[in-house]
């Protein structure tokens, strides 16, 4: 059985790579013929997850590395964003809307709320001192379906 279509990226945890990451994932997902809104949703959640890794995972240490893997399973895309940073002590608390551990940096605390709103499913695996992996799933309602 084939593994299906996938891609993986590995890049430095630098803020200038945030736009690269979201555009690269959006380009990969575009083969499912998503709507403009779906593409923007995906760009936004990638931006949120990568920003979290940079600010919270690595606390702005550019030596950190971020890995993204995206997989297409039928009409669904599964994307994981992973860092090897400091991890999250309390995942449930981090998921709360408006909660931020860094209010002094003017973080809005909306990152996970946005991910949960824009994607069908969001799973967070995190171990303090080891890192965080966020896996997000979204079914793409292909435009083709509208015309068939």
């Amino acid at each position, binding site marked *: 059985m084939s593994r299906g279509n996938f891609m993986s990226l590995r890049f430095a945890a630098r803020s200038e790579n945030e736009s690269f990451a979201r555009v690269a994932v959006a380009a990969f997902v575009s083969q499912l013929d998503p709507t403009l*809104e779906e593409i*923007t949703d995906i760009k*936004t959640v990638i*931006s949120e997850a990568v*920003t979290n890794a940079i*600010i919270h995972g690595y606390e702005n240490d550019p030596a950190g590395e971020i890995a993204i893997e995206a997989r297409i399973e039928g009409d669904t895309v599964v994307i994981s964003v992973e860092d090897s940073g400091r991890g999250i002590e309390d995942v449930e608390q981090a998921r709360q809307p408006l909660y931020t551990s860094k209010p002094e940096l003017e973080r809005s*605390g909306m990152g996970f709320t946005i991910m949960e709103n824009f994607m069908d499913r969001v799973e967070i695996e995190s171990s303090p001192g080891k890192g965080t992996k966020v896996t997000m799933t979204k079914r793409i309602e292909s435009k083709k379906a509208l015309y068939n």
Partner: protein
Amino acid sequence: MGLQIELKRHRKALVVRLKGELDHHTAEGLRAKLDEEIKQSGDISLVLSLKGLTFMDSSGIGVILGRYRQIHAGGGKMVVCGVHPHLHRLFEMSGLYKIIALENDEKAALASLGVAL
């Protein structure tokens, strides 16, 4: 892509035109630029003109909320206009419209602040 910031002063109102993408990377520059302007102006109102803003994430929400606090503390108001549908969802989700008024364009935004062009 980056972010272009254009500032235009109309008496007590500062129009901030944003073009491009507002994320964590570009938010830093915007914050610094606006902080400097607000510090110099004292009591001022802010019009966020977002017609050219094609992307924003929660870092944008953070920088807007932060400037709202400053403007509000100085007795000023904040108005937003030209919001793309995608940004509209973020504004609604984060409750920004509860504190920042939405207008169609810069003219209407300035009028709502009592500034005629």
